[in-house]
C-alpha cells in the first residue's frame, strides 16, 4: 500500500468523518474541512508534473484478489495525471463554491452532500489511476452511484428523482456493458492489467471477440460521456445543485468516458471500426448537442447540451486521432496527431470554461431566483464581476480569440481538414463530412453562446419578473469562477505552459508506439497561423453565428424550435413504460394464480423435455424377450384397476370417489401380494384404510363436488396433457426396461440376500434393509411423519383470528 493508494482512498476516509464533523462542529461550515483534502491532493499531484513531463511513469501494486487477477494497481502517466489534476483542482474550487452556494447550514443537509461529493471524488480518482480493469469498473460504478445520489440531493423534488433514476439507469446499463467488454478483453489476453492488455493489442485485433469487446466497452464510454443517443440523461441531471453540475456534469464524470476511450485507444484504435464509431458518434453528438442547445430556455439546460456537444467534439477528435497509428510520423510530420493534441487541449479548456460558466449560472440563479432566459436580462451593470467572468467563459466556449477555446477550435478545424486528406477507411469520399459538420456545429455553438450571454447580461433589466432584490454575489461565490476564468485567459495567452508539461505526456499515453524511442510529440500551440482555411472557417463561424442569433425571432416561429425537450426522451420514457407494462403482461399471462395452470406448465415441460430427448436420441425401444408371463387372474386384477382409474374422473359423488380410490389402493395391495411383497401389502392396506378414513373426515365438511362447467378447450387441454404424460412415462419405462436388458447391470440385491442373516441377523430382508443396511432413510422418514403430525396439530390448534400474515 503506497502513498498513492492512500491518496485515492483518502476521500472515502474523509467521507466517513464528514457526518461527525457536521454534527459536532456546527459553527464551522463542513465544506471548509472538506476543501482541505482536494487542495492537498492537487498540490500532491502537481509534484508529479516534472517527472511526468520527462516521460516517466509511476506504477504501484497492491494485491486485492490476486487469485482472480484483480488488483488495486495504480498507474500514473500523462493521461491519468491530467485527469487527477482536473478532478482535484476543480474539486477544490467546487467545494469552495459550494460553501457559499449551500450557505444555509440548517436548511441544507450538508453531511449528505459532502459524503456524496467525496465519494464521487475518490471514485473518480480511482477510475483514472487504476491499472486494473476490474478496479476501474468498480470505481466507475461508484461514480454512477455518487452521481445519482448528488442529482437527487433535493430528493423531495420529483424532477430530481426522475433525473437521478434516468442517469442511474443509463450509466449503469452502459457500465454493465463495459464490464462485459472487460471480461471479453480478459478472455482474449488473460489479464486485467491495462498496460499488459495494451502490450497485447496485436492479439486482440486478430481475435474474433474484438468487435463485441469494442462495442461493449464503447457502450460504457458513450453512456457515461453522454454521447448520442445516450446523452438524454445529462440535461435531466441539471436538477442537481449547481456545484454538482459544474463538477460532475461538465468537468469530471462526463469525461470518464473520454478517459476510457483515450485509455483504450492503443488497444482498439488500430482498426477502422473504432475510427468510424468513435469519430462518427462524436461528430454527430457535436452537432446534435449544439443544435439542441439553441432551443433551450433554461441556462443550465443550454450548458448541458453545450457539454454534450463539446464532449462529442472531444470524442470525434479522439476517433480521428486514432488514424495516427496508420501513418509514419517521420514521413508525414505532425499532421495526423493534431487531432489527439486538439482533443487533450480542448479537454482541459472545456473543463475550465464550462466549470466557470456553470458557476456563473449558479450565481445568477442564486441572486435572481431564476435561470429562465426569458425572465433575465440587463444584469451587466448590476453584477459586473459575474458579467466579466461570463464574458470570458462564453467567448472561450464560442471559440473567439484570444481565449483558449479559440485555440482548441482552430486545432479542431485543422484536424477535421486533415481528415479529408486521409487515404484510408474510405476517407477520400466521406472525409469531407468532418469539416462541414464541424463548421456547422461551431456556428450553432457560437449562436447559443451569444444567445445565452446576451439574454442574461445585456438588454433590459426586468425586475418585475424576478422575486429577489438583485445584487452582486458574495466574494466567496465569485472566487472559483474567477480562478477558472483566469485560467481560461492564461491558457489562452500562454498555451505553451501546458504543452510539454501535461499535453505531450498525455498524448504519449494515448498514442504509444507511434513515435520512435526518444522522440517526443511536437506540441506548439499559437494563435496566428496565417491566412489559412481554419481562419476563414472561424470568420465564417462568427458571421453566420451572428446571423443566426440576429434572426432568432424568425427561428422562434418554427415549430421545431419551440420544442425544448430532446425528442429522444420520448423513446426513453416510452420504453420505460413499455418495459413495465410488458413485464406486467408477461407476468399476468403466466402467473394466473390457478394451480391447474401451473400443473399444465410443469407437465407440458416434462412431456416436451422427455419427448424431445427420446426423439432426438432415438432411444425408444420395446424389448419383449425379457418379460414375465402374465397369469389370467393378474390380468383381471389389472383390468379392474384400470377400469377404476379411468372411471375416477367421471364420478360426481364425492364419497363414491373416495371409495373408488380406496378400491384402487386395495387392488394395489393385492398386486403386492401377487408379486410377493408381504410387508408392502400390509403397509399399503393400512395406509389406504387410514387415507380413506381421513378423506371421509375431511370431506364431510366440504360442500358437494361442484359441477364445474369447463370449456371444451380446457377439457381437451387436460386430456391431451394427461394422455401425453401417461404416454411419455410409459414409453420411458418400456425403453428403460429394454435398455436394462440390453446393458445388464449387476443388481445389488444379491448382496442383501446373501448377507441379511449373516451380517444383520434378520431373516426378513425388507426389514433388515429398512432398519439396518439403509437405516438412515428410515430415520428421516420417521422425521417426516413427526413433522407432518406436528403440522396437523398446529394447523388445527393454532387458529389465527386476526389478519395475521402466515
Amino acid at each position: 500500500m503506497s502513498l498513492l493508494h492512500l491518496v485515492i482512498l483518502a476521500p472515502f476516509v474523509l467521507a466517513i468523518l464528514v457526518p461527525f464533523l457536521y454534527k459536532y462542529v456546527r459553527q464551522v461550515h463542513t465544506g471548509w474541512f472538506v476543501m482541505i483534502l482536494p487542495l492537498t491532493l492537487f498540490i500532491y499531484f502537481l509534484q508529479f508534473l516534472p517527472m511526468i513531463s520527462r516521460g516517466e511513469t509511476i506504477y504501484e501494486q497492491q494485491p486485492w484478489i490476486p487469485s482472480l487477477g484483480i488488483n488495486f494497481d495504480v498507474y500514473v502517466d500523462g493521461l491519468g495525471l491530467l485527469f487527477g489534476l482536473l478532478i482535484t483542482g476543480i474539486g477544490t474550487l467546487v467545494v469552495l463554491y459550494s460553501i457559499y452556494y449551500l450557505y444555509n447550514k440548517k436548511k441544507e443537509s450538508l453531511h449528505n452532500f459532502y459524503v456524496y461529493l467525496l465519494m464521487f471524488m475518490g471514485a473518480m480518482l480511482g477510475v483514472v489511476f487504476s491499472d486494473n480493469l476490474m478496479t476501474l469498473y468498480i470505481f466507475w460504478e461508484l461514480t454512477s452511484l455518487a452521481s445519482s445520489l448528488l442529482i437527487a440531493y433535493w430528493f423531495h423534488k420529483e424532477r430530481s428523482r426522475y433525473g437521478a433514476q434516468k442517469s442511474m439507469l443509463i450509466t449503469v446499463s452502459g457500465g454493465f456493458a463495459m464490464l462485459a467488454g472487460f471480461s471479453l478483453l480478459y478472455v482474449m489476453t488473460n489479464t486485467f492489467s491495462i498496460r499488459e492488455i495494451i502490450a497485447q493489442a496485436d492479439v486482440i485485433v486478430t481475435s474474433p471477440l474484438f468487435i463485441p469487446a469494442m462495442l461493449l466497452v464503447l457502450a460504457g464510454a458513450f453512456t457515461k460521456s453522454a454521447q448520442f443517443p445516450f446523452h438524454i440523461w445529462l440535461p435531466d441531471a441539471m436538477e442537481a445543485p449547481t456545484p454538482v453540475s459544474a463538477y460532475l456534469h461538465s468537468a469530471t464524470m462526463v469525461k470518464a468516458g473520454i478517459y476510457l476511450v483515450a485509455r483504450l485507444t492503443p488497444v482498439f484504435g488500430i482498426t477502422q471500426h473504432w475510427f468510424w464509431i468513435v469519430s462518427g458518434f462524436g461528430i454527430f453528438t457535436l452537432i446534435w448537442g449544439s443544435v439542441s442547445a439553441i432551443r433551450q430556455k433554461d441556462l443550465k439546460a443550454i450548458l448541458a447540451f453545450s457539454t454534450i456537444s463539446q464532449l462529442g467534439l472531444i470524442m470525434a477528435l479522439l476517433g480521428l486521432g486514432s488514424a495516427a497509428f496508420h501513418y509514419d510520423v517521420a514521413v508525414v510530420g505532425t499532421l495526423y496527431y493534431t487531432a489527439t493534441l486538439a482533443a487533450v487541449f480542448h479537454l482541459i479548456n472545456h473543463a475550465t470554461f464550462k466549470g466557470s460558466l456553470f458557476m456563473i449560472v449558479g450565481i445568477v440563479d442564486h441572486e435572481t431566483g431564476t435561470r429562465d432566459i426569458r425572465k433575465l436580462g440587463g444584469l451587466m451593470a448590476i453584477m459586473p464581476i459575474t458579467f466579466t467572468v461570463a464574458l470570458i467563459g462564453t467567448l472561450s466556449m464560442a471559440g473567439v480569440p484570444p481565449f483558449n477555446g479559440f485555440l482548441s477550435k482552430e486545432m479542431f478545424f485543422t484536424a477535421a481538414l486533415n481528415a479529408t486528406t486521409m487515404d484510408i477507411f474510405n476517407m477520400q469520399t466521406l472525409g469531407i463530412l468532418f469539416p462541414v459538420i464541424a463548421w456547422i456545429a461551431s456556428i450553432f455553438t457560437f449562436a447559443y453562446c451569444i444567445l445565452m450571454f446576451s439574454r442574461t447580461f445585456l438588454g433590459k433589466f426586468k425586475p418585475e419578473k424576478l422575486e429577489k432584490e438583485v445584487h452582486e454575489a458574495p466574494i466567496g461565490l465569485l472566487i472559483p469562477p474567477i480562478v477558472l476564468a483566469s485560467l481560461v485567459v492564461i491558457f489562452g495567452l500562454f498555451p505553451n505552459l501546458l504543452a510539454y508539461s501535461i499535453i505531450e505526456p498525455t498524448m504519449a499515453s494515448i498514442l504509444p508506439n507511434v513515435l520512435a524511442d526518444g522522440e517526443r510529440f511536437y506540441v506548439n500551440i499559437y494563435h496566428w497561423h496565417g491566412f489559412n482555411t481554419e481562419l476563414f472557417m472561424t470568420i465564417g463561424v462568427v458571421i453566420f453565428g451572428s446571423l443566426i442569433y440576429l434572426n432568432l425571432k424568425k427561428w422562434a416561429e418554427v415549430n421545431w424550435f419551440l420544442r425544448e425537450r430532446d425528442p429522444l426522451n420520448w423513446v426513453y420514457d416510452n420504453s420505460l413504460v413499455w418495459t413495465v407494462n410488458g413485464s406486467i403482461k408477461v407476468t399476468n399471462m403466466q402467473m394466473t394464480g390457478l394451480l391447474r395452470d401451473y400443473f399444465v406448465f410443469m407437465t407440458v415441460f416434462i412431456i416436451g423435455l422427455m419427448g424431445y430427448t427420446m426423439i432426438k436420441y432415438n432411444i425408444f425401444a420395446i424389448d419383449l424377450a425379457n418379460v414375465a408371463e402374465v397369469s389370467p387372474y393378474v390380468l383381471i386384477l389389472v383390468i379392474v384397476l384400470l377400469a377404476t382409474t379411468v372411471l375416477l374422473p367421471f364420478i360426481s359423488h364425492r364419497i363414491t370417489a373416495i371409495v373408488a380410490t380406496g378400491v384402487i389402493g386395495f387392488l394395489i395391495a393385492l398386486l403386492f401380494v401377487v408379486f410377493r411383497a408381504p410387508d408392502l401389502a400390509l403397509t399399503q392396506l393400512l395406509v389406504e384404510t387410514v387415507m380413506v378414513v381421513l378423506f371421509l373426515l375431511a370431506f364431510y365438511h366440504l360442500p358437494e363436488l361442484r359441477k364445474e362447467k369447463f370449456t371444451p378447450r380446457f377439457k381437451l387441454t387436460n386430456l391431451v396433457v394427461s394422455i401425453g404424460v401417461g404416454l411419455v412415462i410409459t414409453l420411458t419405462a418400456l425403453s428403460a426396461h429394454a435398455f436394462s436388458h440390453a446393458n445388464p447391470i449387476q443388481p445389488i440385491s444379491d448382496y442383501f440376500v446373501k448377507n441379511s442373516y449373516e451380517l444383520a441377523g434378520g431373516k426378513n430382508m425388507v426389514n433388515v434393509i429398512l432398519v439396518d443396511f439403509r437405516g438412515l432413510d428410515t430415520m428421516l422418514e420417521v422425521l417426516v411423519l413427526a413433522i407432518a403430525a406436528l403440522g396437523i396439530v398446529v394447523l388445527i390448534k393454532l387458529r389465527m383470528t386476526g389478519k395475521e400474515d402466515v
Partner: protein
Amino acid sequence: MLELSLTIALIIMALSILVCFIRVVKGPTMSDRVVALDTVGITLIGIIGIVMIIQNTLAYADVILVIAILAFIGSVALAKFIEGGVVFDRDHN
C-alpha cells in the same frame, strides 16, 4: 390338478371382485357401495389365501388378518358416517 383348480378359483374370485366393483360404481345407494366394498375385502382375503398356497409361503398370514380387521373397521366407519355424518364423535361436555 391342484394348480389348475387354484387358478380357476383365483379367476372366479377376481371375477367376483369385478362384479362387486360394478356394484361399487353403480350404487345406487351409499350402503350398496359399502357392502360391496366389504365383500371386496373378504374376497381379497380369499385371493391372498390362494396366492399363499400357489406361492407356497406363509408370509401373507398377517395380511389376511389385517384385511379382516380393516374391512371390519372400514365398514363400521363408513356405516357410522352414513348414519350420523361423523366418524369420530366429539365430547359432549
